[in-house]
Structures are given as structure tokens and as C-alpha cells.
């Protein structure tokens, strides 16, 4: 496929799976792996994102539960043929645009790319969540692309859960585009508990329509390395977009999160709350940008990143950012790094709760704040149980000192 000399943005349309793969191949060749100078990889440990060691294809099996019959499902090729204009631009321009373009292209061009397009029909209000359990197995890489279209006035809760067997080492590239039309409501929960030797590049792009309510909740409970990129194209007035994230990281793990709240037009409300609980010598990177374009007046945009450091070896890097080009806006961001509040622990111990249990309770409370945003009891309960076990497991872990975290920024005296 030739790339036109002048890129006419309005005509970026991919009409078939082979076209998608060819475009990905092209992008893979043009892009390069991240270096220290890349601002989009600032503070990341650049040794971790290598694709080496995952040459063979791994298997992805998807098990579904919930009212999937009520939803229209298309394979990727058909979806792109019929609705390339809906998803094409997002796939080409937005997925991977926060820094992982090459990784995403690598995934999209691979032979074992799987995925579907899910369409929730106009006015359709689903009474139970759509659940997709994705299980990876084997040693190697796999890619998943999900295209979600929630039509006017519809409402749905979708839960995509990624997992792998304990012994397996997989590198998963997961791309998701969620297009929400006017007046629709969608909550998308993306959780993962991959094995300790696995890696994940997770890119999500949402496009909320006018007067729509879109909520995304990212939960990271596993994997040695996660690169998570979430972007929201906020160009329709009256939209309300909430982005939540919870990551619990243990010894030797890194969670690298980059987000973009792009207020392209006025009258949109966006709110982001990401929380990281870091055990042992884990590290987190959070870079969140709120960008308000010219003319995007009456914007309300908020962002908050809270880091709970639970060991002397843990490390949190935060880069909350604002680029404001309009006025009549209310924007704020905040970031905190801290430890478990000793006063909170004292209070619990003064009620007889032992120190370990008290700290556990407080840490769970920290995490539950995000779980409670899902808005569906069944999912919250299941996730709570998993978070609890994860917290127990993390408590037991030894702190691995000596694993020096190298960051992408030059260090100073």
C-alpha cells in the first residue's frame, strides 16, 4: 500500500483486515524503538519494552458471558469493510499515539491478530455486563484488537479481563477503540492479571459523543511490565468522560501509564483518577496530559494521580501535565506520593487490629476507591476478591533490592 504524499486526514480509512495489516507493517518500518530522548518514554525503564524473547505466536482464547446475543458481533475484516469510516481514523492516528506506535504496529501486523467488533444497537439498554475473559497460553506474543461501537441512546457495561497461566510468558498487544454516540452510556472495565514474566502493551482510545457518559476503569494486577496508553478525544459538547486506573505492582514490576484528555471542543467534562500501590522494588510512571485546544471553552477537566509507596525500594514517577489554549476553562491536576498514613494505622490498631492487618485494610481501602467506581456490584465483588488475594500475595513477597531501576531521564548529583 502506498502512502499518499499529502495525508488527507478526512480520507484515512481502512477498509479491510489486509489493509489494516499492511498499514501496520508500514508504520512498524517507519517507527523506531524508544530512546532516552523520547519525551513519551520519559522515566520509563527502557530495558523492559523489548519484544525479543517472544518470537513465536501465543494462543488467545476468549470466553464470553453475559447478554452477547443482544449485541451485534462482526469479525474484524467485515467490521472494517462496513464501518471503516467509524474506526479507521482512531486506529491509524490515535492508537499508539502516546508513544507505543511501534509496539502497536508490531501487534497489528502479526498473523495471530484476533479481535472483534461489538455493536450495541440504538437505544439498547443491556441489563447485565458483557464479559470477555481472554486467556493467553504458551510462550510468545499475541495481539488483540477490539472495536466497540455504542450507538445512540444505548447503554452497556463491558468487562474485558486478560489472564495467563502462571508458568506462561506472553507479550500481549491489546488495542481497543470505543466509539460512543450521542446520549449513550458505557462503562468499560479492562483488567489484567498476567503472569509475572509476561508483558502487556495496552492501548485504549475513546470517542465520546454529545451528551454521552463514558467511563473506563483499568485494573492492573499482574505482568512484569505494562505500558498502558489511554486517550480520550473529547470533541462533543455535553460529554462526560471518566477515566479510572488502579495498579498494584510487586517485586521487579513496572507500570507505565500515559494518558491524554484531549478537549478538542468546548462543553466537555473529563475526570481522571489513577491510583498506584507499589510494593517491593516496583516502579510506576504516570504521565497524564490534559490538552485544551483553541476554542474549547467551558471545559471542565480534572486529573489526579495518587501513589502509595509501601516499601523503601518502591519508586513512583508522576508527570501530570496541562496544555491550555482556551479560556473559560476549569482545569486542575494533582499528584501525591506517600506512605500509609500512620495515624490511620494507629486508629485501627487502637481498635485491636494488628499492624499487618491494619496496613492491609488501609491499602485495600485505597484500592477499593477505584473498584467502587465500576458501578456494578457483581463486577466490584469479583474484583474486590482478586484485589484482596493480590494484596495478600504482595505482602508475602520479599523485597528484591539490587535490581536498579534505570529511568529515561539523565540523573543528577
Amino acid at each position, binding site marked *: 500500500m502506498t502512502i499518499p504524499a499529502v495525508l488527507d486526514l478526512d480520507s484515512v480509512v481502512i477498509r479491510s483486515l489486509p489493509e489494516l495489516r499492511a498499514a501496520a507493517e508500514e508504520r512498524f518500518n517507519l517507527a523506531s524503538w524508544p530512546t532516552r530522548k523520547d519525551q513519551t518514554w520519559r522515566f520509563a525503564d527502557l530495558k523492559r519494552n523489548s519484544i525479543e524473547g517472544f518470537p513465536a505466536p501465543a494462543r488467545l482464547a476468549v470466553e464470553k458471558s453475559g447478554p452477547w446475543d443482544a449485541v451485534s458481533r462482526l469479525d474484524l475484516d467485515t467490521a472494517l469493510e462496513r464501518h471503516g469510516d467509524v474506526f479507521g481514523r482512531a486506529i491509524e492516528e490515535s492508537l499508539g499515539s502516546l508513544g507505543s506506535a511501534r509496539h502497536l504496529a508490531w501487534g497489528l501486523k502479526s498473523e495471530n491478530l484476533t479481535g472483534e467488533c461489538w455493536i450495541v444497537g440504538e437505544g439498547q439498554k443491556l441489563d447485565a455486563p458483557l464479559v470477555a475473559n481472554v486467556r493467553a497460553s504458551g510462550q510468545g506474543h499475541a495481539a488483540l484488537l477490539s472495536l466497540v461501537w455504542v450507538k445512540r441512546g444505548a447503554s452497556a457495561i463491558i468487562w474485558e479481563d486478560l489472564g495467563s497461566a502462571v508458568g506462561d510468558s506472553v507479550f500481549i498487544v491489546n488495542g481497543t477503540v470505543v466509539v460512543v454516540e450521542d446520549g449513550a452510556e458505557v462503562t468499560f472495565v479492562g483488567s489484567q492479571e498476567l503472569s509475572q514474566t509476561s508483558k502487556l502493551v495496552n492501548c485504549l482510545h475513546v470517542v465520546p459523543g454529545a451528551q454521552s457518559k463514558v467511563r473506563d476503569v483499568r485494573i492492573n494486577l499482574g505482568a512484569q511490565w505494562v505500558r498502558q496508553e489511554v486517550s480520550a478525544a473529547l470533541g462533543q459538547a455535553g460529554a462526560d468522560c471518566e477515566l479510572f486506573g488502579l495498579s498494584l505492582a510487586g517485586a521487579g514490576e513496572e507500570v507505565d501509564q500515559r494518558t491524554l484528555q484531549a478537549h478538542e471542543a468546548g462543553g466537555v467534562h473529563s475526570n481522571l483518577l489513577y491510583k498506584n500501590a507499589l510494593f517491593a522494588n516496583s516502579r510506576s510512571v504516570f504521565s497524564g496530559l490534559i490538552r485544551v485546544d483553541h476554542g474549547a471553552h467551558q471545559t471542565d477537566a480534572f486529573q489526579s494521580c495518587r501513589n502509595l509507596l509501601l516499601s*523503601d525500594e518502591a519508586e513512583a514517577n508522576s508527570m501530570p501535565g496541562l496544555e*491550555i489554549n482556551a479560556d473559560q476553562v476549569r482545569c486542575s491536576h494533582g499528584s501525591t506520593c506517600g506512605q500509609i498514613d500512620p495515624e490511620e494505622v494507629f486508629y485501627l490498631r487502637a481498635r485491636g487490629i494488628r499492624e499487618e492487618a491494619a496496613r492491609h485494610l488501609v491499602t485495600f481501602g485505597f484500592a477499593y476507591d477505584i473498584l467502587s467506581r465500576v458501578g456494578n456490584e457483581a463486577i466490584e465483588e469479583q474484583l474486590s476478591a482478586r484485589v484482596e488475594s493480590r494484596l495478600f500475595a504482595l505482602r508475602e513477597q520479599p523485597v528484591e533490592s539490587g535490581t536498579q531501576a534505570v529511568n529515561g531521564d539523565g540523573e543528577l548529583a
Partner: protein
Amino acid sequence: MDAVLIDQSQGNFTYPEDYALDAGRGLGPKTVDYISEVKGEDSWIREFRHRALDIFESKPMPTHWASDDLNAIKFQDIRYYLSKGKGGPSRSWDDVPDDVKRTFERLGIPERERGFLAGVEAQFDSEAAYSNIKEEFDKLGVIFVNSSEGLSKHPEIFRKWFGKVIPTGDNKFSALNSAVFSGGSFIYVPPGVKVKHPLQAYFRINAEQFGQFERTLIIVDEGAEVMYMEGCTAPKFETATLHSAVVELVAMPHAKIQYITVQNWSSNVFNLVTKRGLAHEGAEIRWIDCNIGSRLTMKYPGVIMKGRKARGEVISIALANTGQHQDTGAKMIHAADETTSNIVSKSISIGEGRSTYRGQVHIPRHLKGCKNNTECDALLINSQSRTDTYPAITVRGNRHATQHEASVSQVSEDQIFYMRQRGLTEAAAMSLSVNGFVNDLVREFPMEYSVELKRLIDLEMEDSVG
């Protein structure tokens, strides 16, 4: 010498000049030699300059993160050393633009200072003011000289720290300064001496003082205290388009240094400054900064808290009007237990002005009890202005607490309406609101400045409204 032609449309003007000493345009090893010769420097200083020149040439422009506007700097067109000697540039008062004259009036700048600031006079007759204080300093053992004198007459004090707080290779512009520096203040305060009068840059004006590449080094010994002030609110006429200063502060245990800068360079100037302080145990370093002028200012005052319970603080006000970009911030490096840092930055963007905050807070592992608090707020006055905030906070370990908050807002329309209903004009209402926004920071500036600052903000607001 050729007349220096400066772009009229930028509010500057032409005038004939006559320099006693001039290194010529462009930068190379010969320029460095010329400067060193003229000053009669020891060979170690000349070598220092040459090494710095090499580093400067090898480093690329940091445009991968900084403004592309940097590419407009034409290094080969700049004169790196000019000394006005006795004569200096002279132009008549008639040549000074009216709005500049009006500003002096409005800000209440004393008559005798106006001439100097407007480039009409080469020297500000400050010697008289200084000579009174000089006696007192001599008694206390306080040293207050310029960089050349500092290095040649008191090497045993200054050489130890010169280039240590900000190594030559720190960035391209500190390397440039290290190659061609001239002027600036070298200050030493002996143990226990708490200097009552703020030391002011203009006490020590000489032919080189307000040069482009000032080098300042302030060493305050144990338990001593000093406050240093530089700059002024009045627009400072400058021919040079590039200012690249380096300021190094060293606070020995339990010492305290407050460094106050008010910058209002004319709108053709690139103002790229590297400022950093080293605070030992129990010491405190405060940077209090106000940036109103220049075309592009890049300045990130920093404190390295090297000793236990050291404290670093950056208080910053920036105002960016059309054609200006204030790119400022702070850098706090915690290197000892129980150190605390505080950053408060408030910026105002007017017209098409652009203000950017870049911050870095770093707390490494194996320390305990460190705290950082950062607050950066931006006020947008109208729809064309732009503001960016890019902090980076790195914390290792579970024994610290950091908090960063930033917000962007406008002057509330309800507020303006309410004030106008009570009879204020829109401009007056805006001024009040804006002054309210920066008020608690303006109060950190010494009296002499804070009154002028308020008036200056009023002036800027007037131009922007209506």
C-alpha cells in the same frame, strides 16, 4: 563602529555606539582568549573557559523538550564581550520611546535611575549609595565584588565552589556562560553574620555589570544570612538579544540565602538562566522570582538539599504578554533525610502570551522524612493566551510525602461584574482580580519591589483589556 540597527517594530531603536573593548561578533577560541586577556586572568580560568567552549559546541539545542524558538538565536551574530569603558552607548533622552517614558512615570522610578535604564546614561551613580554600606561590610568581613575580582583577589574562598554547584556541562547555556562570563556578583558572608541590608546588584555597577553573561556566586558561611536582589520592574533597554546568566548559591550549615530577581528585559531578549543552590544541614535557600519581560525566558531555579533538614523554596510569578513566552519552573533535589521543599508558581497569560511551568522533584531511595509541596496556578486573561504545566515528580521509598497541585482558571466573570456594579472600570476590576491572584506571592518580595510589581501588573492589564 557600525551603528547597531535594532528592529524598530519591536519597540526598540537605533543609536550610535562606541565601545572601548569589543570582542567582535561570533564565538570561538579567539573570543575566549580576548576576554581572558582583557581581564588579566590566571591561566586556570582561561582553561576553564576553553573547556566550557568545547562543551558548548558539542551540545545540541535542547529543542526536544524546549521551545523551538531557541532556534532563532543566531550565535554567530552575537557579540560576546563588550565593555562600555568610560564612554559607552549614548543616546539622547529624545530617542527614548514614549511608552517607555510613561512606564517610568507610572512605576515611580526615580529620575536618576531612568537615564541609566533607558540606555541614555552608561552608569548609574550608585557608588555613593554603596560606599556607605561598604564600610559596614568591610567591618563584618563581608566580601562583595564582581566575578573577576572574586576569582583573582579571593581565590581561596571562591575557587572551591566556582563551577561546583552548576558544572559546566550541566546544559548548553551554562557551558556558554562558563566560556564567556563577565560581571555578576561574588559574595562571601562569614560565619554568624546576618547581613541586615539586602545586597543589591546595582550597588556594584560598573562597565560590565549588566552584561549578557553574568556569573554570580554567593557563599554564606555557617549560621549566616543574606538577601540579594537583582533586576527591576522597569523595562530595561538592552541591545543584546541573548542573556545567559549562571547563579550559584552555597549555604553552609544553618545558613540562609534569599535571592530575589525581578526581570523585565525588553521583548527581543532571550533570557536563559541557570540558577541553583546547595543547602547544607539545616540551611535554607529561597528563590523569589518575578518574570515579566523578554521574548523567551527559560529559568528553573533549583535547590540541592544536601544536608539533613535543609530547606529549599521557589516562589515564582510570571507574566506573559503577546509575543512572550515565560518558561519557568523549579528543580528540587532531595539528597538528605528530613529535607523539605516548597514550590509556589503563579503565572498569568495575557493576549497571546504563553507561560509554561516545568518542575522536577526528586527524592531518592534510602532517605526518610522528606516532604515536597508544589502549587502551580495559571490565570488566563483572554482566549488567545496559552499555559502549559509539566511537572515531574520522582519519589523512591515509603518514608516521604509529596503533593503537587496545579490549576488553570480565568478571572471570574461574576467577580468582574460585581466590581463594575460598584463603579470600577473593567480594567480596574481585572487588575484587582489579578493582583488578588498573585497577592500572597507579591508579599514575599521586599517592599521596594512589591509596590512596583503591583503597578506593573496594572499597566500590563491595561494594555490587554479593551
